[in-house]
């Protein structure tokens, strides 16, 4: 054991443990306790009910589509932002964090007003393409794309800036085309950050509530996502059902986080070993 030179170990340990205990550990263990009292059969009834199954399926597929949209366009935005110059670049760059700074309820009503069948954009899309956006899964995807927008861009940008120019130069001097340099040199080194960005956005929108509650219309078996189902169970005093669903969702997002962390550790190790050998 290293001798502790600096003071304050006891004090900072005390504050940290007490605070975490009261704010995080105590409430979470109450959920665990509540979930532990639910019998397996009850769990099955709650989770396998058609309404729950539909909500989980809807949440997962809309989150997946929204995060994929963010990967596609986020990649382009990150590329443009790190490599090109264009007017008002700083303003555009700052605006990318808007979904983080704007309250989700404000974003929710703005998107709903814009995309509802009475809103100008919603009306235009419906008359030209024949799709209604608000109160349909499409509206949920729009809200999720808004909320998850910063994640892919902000994970990719630092990696794009750090990329070794020499690798690109070497490729060019060996006669590789622009496309070959991108697909053989740049893309592989950007892949882990892209996947991390996707997972972060996915995990964020999986539990999203504020921006979705207005635009989705919350129709059971049609446009009800999991977080809304949990809330409606709670409002009907079905605490057991809400706790069961919440426990399952927490396990899912915990596993997702473990996967990203594991992936990052694995990739770093692989990268380090490859570069040192």
């Amino acid at each position: 054991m290293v001798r502790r030179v600096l003071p304050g170990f006891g004090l900072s340990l005390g504050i940290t443990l007490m605070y975490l205990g009261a704010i995080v550990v105590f409430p979470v263990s109450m959920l665990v306790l509540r979930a532990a009292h639910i019998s397996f059969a009850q769990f099955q009834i709650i989770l396998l009910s058609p309404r729950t199954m539909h909500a989980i399926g809807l949440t997962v597929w809309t989150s997946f589509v929204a995060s994929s949209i963010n990967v596609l366009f986020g990649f382009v935005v990150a590329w443009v932002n790190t490599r090109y110059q264009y007017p008002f670049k700083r303003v555009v760059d700052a605006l990318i964090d808007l979904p983080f700074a704007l309250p989700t309820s404000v974003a929710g009503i703005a998107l709903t007003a814009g995309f509802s069948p009475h809103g100008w954009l919603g009306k235009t899309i419906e008359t030209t393409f024949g799709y209604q956006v608000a109160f349909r899964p499409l509206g949920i995807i729009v809200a999720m794309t808004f909320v998850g927008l910063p994640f892919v861009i902000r994970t990719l940008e630092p990696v794009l800036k750090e990329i070794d120019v020499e690798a690109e130069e070497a490729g060019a001097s060996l006669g590789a085309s622009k496309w070959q340099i991108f697909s053989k040199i740049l893309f592989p080194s950007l892949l882990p950050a892209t996947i991390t960005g996707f997972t972060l956005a996915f995990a964020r929108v999986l539990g999203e509530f504020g921006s979705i509650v207005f635009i989705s219309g919350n129709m059971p078996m049609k446009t009800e996502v999991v977080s809304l189902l949990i809330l409606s169970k709670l409002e009907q005093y079905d605490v057991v059902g809400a706790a069961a669903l919440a426990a399952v969702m927490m396990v899912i997002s915990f596993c997702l986080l473990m996967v990203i962390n594991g992936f990052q550790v694995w990739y770093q190790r692989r990268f380090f070993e490859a570069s040192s050998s």
Partner: protein
Amino acid sequence: MRTQALKAVQRDPVWVRMILIGIAFSFLAFFLGMPLVVIAINACRDGLHVYAQSLRDPDAVSAILLTLKVVAIAVPCNAIFGIAAAWLIAKFQFRGKQVLLGLIDMPFSVSPIIAGLLFVLAFGSNTLLGGWLMAHGVRVIFSSTGIVLATVFVTLPFVARELIPLMQSQGIDEEEAAMTMGASGWQVFARVTLPNIKWGLWYGITLSTARAVGEFGAVSVVSGHIRGLTNTISLHVEILYNEYNFSAAFALSSLMVLFAFGTLVVKIILEGKRST
């Protein structure tokens, strides 16, 4: 010479640049510009008089005041916790650090609705603790206490996550030097550590303030939506919208947009300060 060569390799043909900038702009305009335009149009639709009226409405004012109160409690608490946790994790070696880091990160991986549910399950009037507190006249759920607790939970990681890597990279050499020269623990913290982490601390505080002001899901579960009593700004926006009082809802929203812009500006300034 060299920089020119580097630039040439990384420069894309003009048509590629045009197309990619076009795609990026359309995407951002559609998802970020559109909501802002909608808010601006709807807030001003019924004229400046109605706009000013909706911001002066007593319920709106009490929602703004409650939000400020919640921020004033939650953010300093989390700042103090963040400093203590960062000091503990960055300056000392001990077992179980990973567990602590995992616990600090936990609120980020919990859906806002579930965060609210956690506090209903812990402090609801039909629980052991909640019942005992109720018997002693303390109401947690459906009161501003619950709103503060839920906000503290949701914003807990921001300052700590900002300071931990920062203090880890700074090491303990400067503090040790100050100690050997006879400074007391608090002197070391105030004169050596604090100036070093100042900008990172403000950055973390900015992020947690933004999140605390805007939190909706968690607060919505614990608040009970009692007008004039347990309504924060984001909850009041919801109520106004559901009552089809669109101009008032968007007037309040426009205030939040201004706040968000302020946050983004402060964030950019701090990012500049932090990197130097």
